């Protein structure tokens, strides 16, 4: 009897130790660093995610960074953009922001998300042995281009920022409190990266050895050159701007799209004027551009919010003959039967049958031929386009040589496409042409993420924005240099006291 029990005991004890021998969990649905970077297509996936970070996720909440919210910083804070919803965009719209403003915080967060993905991809792809050197160079060039876009945006918004690169990943110290790096130092890194990228990247991806489809969303030689030109433009290195813009023109691949309104339709995802764009498809990775930009109670573009709108003040500055004036919804009969239009004054009360709008919606990302019936839309957002090359060259030549015919011609080339009134050189000096270029850039690039950088580069941010605020009956609060850069987001300042907002708003 005892023996039987003891046998049972031994049996029991042997069961005790027998289970769950390996406690390494099976990883079913994620890649780990043991298997994530093996093949060419692994590397391509890492590259693709960096591009993907220019916009929100492919499903839901697709309004971050270049698909909408970036414009809160670049355009709402100027004499062009207007938001009548109050809150964070309202603060920016009236130049009343502070470091807790969520839109400022988000732009920082998502630009750095791209930087971080880029750093990870560079770090991991550099170490790969399963791809050719040519492939590696191509991938690294694309990634570094995207990273340069993000750093360019970050330095526009915040000036000196934390410079984080792939080098920090070898032995990361997540609790470090780095000091911001000067814009000049960051610029020189970006210029180096973009120079290498412009040498390595193809003009386009038709019949490419690596990518099987003509991937129009990828960085090209022209894109690298144009971004490099933009960085020199900000640094006011006019000669470089002149040289590189000439080089881009000389590539002979870009030209102005014949119709301004046509350029921005949802159907026109990519054309000869596009140098680098964020692509969306309404059904696969749609953006919420139309929701935010579309008109209120409009009979065709229904159920939109007119959130990122344009001030009447700006719209009224267009000539009637300028096609660009009609890239808006100035008046229409709404779904409620009311006539929507501009009031005689900002505070006028509309008579029966009318509704006066506080601001005006643009068609730029909300054209009535687009996905008017779907929640998400597929408008491309042009980060770099050819008109910018032309106007930047005009500006550089004006700065280098004073008033000159080529600058005027370049401006007229852009105007001409929209049937706007042409400039005559005789009517301008270097200084007034500079103002004309600034105004032209406003008319041409509203809500393309360029207005604030242009005003600051031309040192007109305080003058023009204050004048605008005064015209709309708001306090003229902009002062330079206090408002040149946004305050670092409060949450980041709390973490890293080296991000100092003492001289910022």
């Amino acid at each position, binding site marked *: 009897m005892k023996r039987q029990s003891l046998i*049972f005991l031994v049996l029991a004890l042997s069961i005790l130790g027998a*289970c769950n021998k390996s406690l390494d969990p099976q990883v079913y649905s994620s890649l780990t660093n043991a298997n994530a970077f093996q093949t060419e297509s692994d590397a391509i996936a890492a590259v693709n995610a960096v591009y993907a970070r220019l916009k929100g996720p492919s499903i839901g909440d697709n309004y971050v960074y270049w698909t909408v919210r970036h414009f809160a910083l670049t355009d709402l804070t100027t004499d062009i953009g207007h938001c009548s919803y109050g809150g964070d965009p309202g603060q920016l719209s009236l130049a009343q922001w502070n470091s807790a403003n969520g839109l400022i915080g988000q732009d920082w967060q998502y630009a750095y998300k791209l930087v971080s993905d880029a750093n990870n991809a560079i770090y991991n792809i550099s170490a790969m042995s399963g791809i050719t050197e040519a492939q590696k160079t191509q991938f690294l060039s694309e990634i570094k281009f995207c990273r340069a876009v993000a750093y360019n945006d970050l330095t526009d918004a915040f000036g000196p920022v934390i410079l984080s690169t792939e080098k920090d990943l070898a032995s990361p110290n997540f609790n470090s409190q780095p000091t911001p790096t000067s814009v000049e130092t960051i610029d020189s890194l970006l210029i180096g990266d973009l120079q290498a990228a412009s040498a390595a990247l193809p003009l386009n991806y038709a019949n490419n050895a690596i990518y099987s489809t003509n991937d129009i969303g990828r960085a090209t030689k022209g894109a690298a050159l144009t971004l490099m030109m933009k960085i020199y433009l900000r640094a006011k290195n006019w000669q470089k701007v002149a040289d590189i813009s000439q080089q881009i023109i000389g590539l002979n691949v870009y030209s102005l799209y014949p119709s301004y309104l046509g350029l921005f339709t949802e159907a026109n995802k990519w054309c000869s004027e596009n140098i680098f764009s964020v692509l969306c498809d309404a059904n696969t990775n749609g953006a919420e551009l139309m929701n935010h930009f579309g008109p209120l109670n409009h009979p065709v573009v229904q159920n939109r919010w007119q959130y990122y709108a344009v001030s009447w003040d700006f719209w009224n500055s267009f000539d009637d003959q300028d096609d660009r004036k009609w890239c808006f919804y100035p008046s229409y009969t709404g779904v409620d039967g009311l006539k929507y239009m501009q009031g005689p004054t900002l505070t006028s009360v509309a008579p029966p049958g009318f509704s006066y709008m506080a601001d005006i919606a643009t068609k730029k990302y909300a054209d009535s031929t687009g996905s008017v019936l779907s929640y998400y839309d597929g408008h491309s957002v042009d980060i770099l386009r050819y008109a910018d090359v032309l106007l930047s060259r005009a500006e550089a030549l004006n700065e280098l040589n004073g008033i000159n015919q080529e600058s005027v011609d370049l401006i007229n080339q852009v105007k001409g496409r929209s049937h706007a009134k042409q400039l005559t050189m005789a009517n301008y000096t270097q200084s007034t042409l500079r103002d004309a270029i600034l105004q032209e850039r406003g008319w041409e690039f509203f809500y393309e993420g360029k207005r604030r950088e242009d005003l600051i580069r031309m040192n007109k941010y305080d003058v023009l924005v204050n004048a605008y605020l005064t015209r709309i009956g708001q306090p003229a609060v902009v002062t330079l240099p206090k408002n040149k850069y946004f305050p670092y987001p409060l949450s980041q300042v709390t973490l890293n006291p080296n991000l100092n907002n003492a001289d910022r708003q």
Partner: protein
Amino acid sequence: MRTTTSFLLYLGLWVLASLGVSLPTRAQKKDVKEITGTVTDARSGPLAGVTVNLKGTQRTTVTDAAGQFRLTITGHNPVLQITSVGYEDQEIPVGGQSRFSISLQPSNKKLEEVVVVGYGTQRKRDLTGAVSSVNSEHMTLGGTISNVGQAIQGRAAGVQVQQADFSPGAGMNIVIRGGNSITTTNQPLYVVDGFTTDNGSYINPNDIEDIQILKDASATAIYGARGANGVVLITTKKGKAGKVIIEGDASNGQQYLTYKPSLINGTQYAAIQNAIATENNTTPPFPASFPNTNTDWWKLTTQNSSVQNRTVNVSSNDKNSRIYVSASYLKQIGVLKHTDMQRYSGRVGAERSLNDRVKLGANVYAASTTSDVQKYSGDITAPLYSILTAPPNIPVYNPDGTYYRYLGKDNALATLMEPTNTSVNKLVNGNMYFDYELIPHLTYHISAGGEFSQTTNGQYIPLSLVAGQANGGAATEQMGTSERWLVEQYLTYKFTTGSHSFTALFGTTNQKDLLQFLTAGSKGYSTDIFLNNNLGAGATSYPAPTTNKQEIKLSSFFGRLNYAYNDKLLATFTLRDDISSRFGPNFRHGIFPSGALAWRMTDETFVKSLNTFSSLKARVSYGVTGNDRIGNYGYLSTFSPYNTVLGPNSTLSTGIEPASLSNNNLKWESNAQFDFGLDMGFAKGKVNATIDIYRKKTTDLLLAVPVGQWWGFSTQTANAGSIENKGIELALNTENIRTDNFSWNTTFNIAYNRQKDLTLANSVKVISTNTANPSGVVSAQEFTRLEPGKELGVIYGYKYLGVIKTGDQNTAQPNAKPGDPKFADLNGDGKITPDDRTYLGNTNPHYIAGISNDLHYKGFDLNIFFQGAFGYNLYDMNRLVLESTTGTAVLDRFVAGSHENTSVPRNGYFLSTYGSYVNSRFVENASYVRLKQLSLSYNIPVNLIHQLSFIDGLRIYASAQNLLTFTGYKGTDPEVNVHAAGNYVGANPTSNSPTVSNTAGGLDFNAFPSFRTFVVGVRVDIH
């Protein structure tokens, strides 16, 4: 796979069981004799279910309904031990007798109770740890009570239960002795009939026999890595002694809203919005031709509603077996429309002694819960937000009967009523166990079980809504399943030499969890009829389908030694070694020891000479427990997809990016706890008190350490920081009056907990959490802050001084307009900056208490139960939002020149550069006392009617829940907290880091409205 595993488990148990059965009986011919007897109570009534044991053996039987027993006895000088809960033990030498008539005396039953402890049972008098017991008689049941948390709220000292969300079927926030952890969950571990489960709080509370809440390390350390937050041991009913009893219970209740926001009407709203626009120099939004209506959105979306409970259970008990079968139905209609919940549940519990040495048992629970879910988070997408802020001047419907839309968005009623959003949870839990006495005093126990929980969320957005119209109807189906397989084995050896008695336990557990998640959806429907039930009928698959699967493994070894000297000195030592797959190979093991001593001083002469105590026990314990409840795979660098369109056609290009900031040095969070307790009885046991003081220190916290966003993430999980909780608890039970016809008992508990963060991670000075977005255009802002020296969840913001009046010189807020809020310049630097913020109030109660009075007079029973929490604040974000939109406070807003004597600033807090909407104005003291339950029942004396003699009891009852609340708090309810961590339901398969925000307490925003419930019911017992 699943069926194979369970089949093998069954097979294994069968083999074990048959082994036990086939063993020859050890009875020897010599000295064998059969005896019989009857056990009665003091009034000579038969006592069923009394245990009759042959002393020194496992030979045991139980009396039947007539109080009779039969037992075969062996050995020299045999002695019978007669034990029954509630009666004094007796020992009777058998001698030459073969027929016994035994009368039991009622005892002071509190000390004789046998309670469930981890991996075993103990006499309550032998406990060395701090354990709170709540039995079914002392739970809040019926009405809208659907989970364990509701049933025990206020019933156990030091167990803070917060109904953070009043929606039907919502989980409760349960924290024992203050939160140990900053980032991971502070919810306790649930063990139901020996099975460790994350769904423990959701079982039907009516099936529960009793609950033991293990609080100190001596009690919890046997659960090692998962014991740090306390352990809730739930024992389900196994049937009453003696006979077959059928119990039926039916009740109906009605719920009445207790929260009603004060809102303005349409005319007022239009006038104010126009006036605000004019003041801000912008276009008035409601011109004369706007079709003004007065719509009461609150009235349209809420209702007084019903709740129904139906329960039947059958139980039976004979000397070898016990069985309990129950079926139950609960249906609660939400006071917010379209939030109904219904649950069917069933349980079978059975146990059978196959022979003297072998016992087999099993428990099976199955439930199906269906809810119309809405979002109740502090989120502007929650229906409460759209209801509270709905413009009252817009109509509900267009003339053609379709829903009216304003500014391109659906109105509040459409948003609430039109979408289908049904959540169905199916939960099955089965475990079986087998006890076998290998040699005298050495028992082998094996239990094996599985749990399967599946939650399916089906959503359909019909064509009547903006999003539905845009997509042509959109359906999604999300299914999350979790499986757990658990095998536990242990050996228990008891031996006594002289005055020393020992119980040794050694065991092991192996657990494996599988989590799976599946989503699919489509859009473009020709009809709304399919809802989410025919995804194939949609034109386009959208969103793209996703699946995710994760695995967690846990292996443990544990041991315990209980030692008693002369029944006077008691000692317990435990040790557990846990090995968890959540940590990297180098840090997988966690060793958790504990020790406790207790001294039963009742019989010491110096205690006796005091003439004060009828019983007295002092306990002291110290031990270390752990916490592994972080996301899975955290130690591995993982990558997840992030796709975009890059090509000329619309196909997605696949991308991958890092899924988190991994940390291959992750290890256990450990919690060291010291406890000193006194169990005291006074006045011949009529007054019993337990006092415990404790100090807990948690180190190597599994902390989401904030990192700069240049790393691509906002946090990294690391072991960093430490936190301390100190407190004192008092539980008191008194028998105030006891006569033949009248009795009055009181139970009271109160606890004080003081929490202090000691350290955070290197170079991390503070950890902040944000509010929810107060509107679509205003971001969440920093709202609570944690730094060393502070407790979790302290509100951090500006100090509000009032409104800037016309002509005020306020240089600290340059460019401020009259009517802007004015903040205190706390650092005196002459301007308002984020450095002027300060701590505005804690949000976790410092004191919690409950008092229950049970009065019995003849057939009447009255229970009056108050429960409360004290010394904390809530941030009333509803008030913030309402005072610039639709609340009556907007009528009192500052208007330059005409209405300046007010504290309500112009148009909210969002326009000014200075300060923030997080300020002292919306921080309110939330201390409360609540009459949680008032119930009266009457036992109809049916036994007087001969024809109804088959009815044992017929009871009618009426009760009110949340009848009265005494509080100064003006918001939704003093208990709400939309940031509450909620119960831990396994790691969310979709996320690598389950979001738990213990640091963000006390946010009242868009919470489900509170209500009171009246219930009447009838309960009948039939034999």
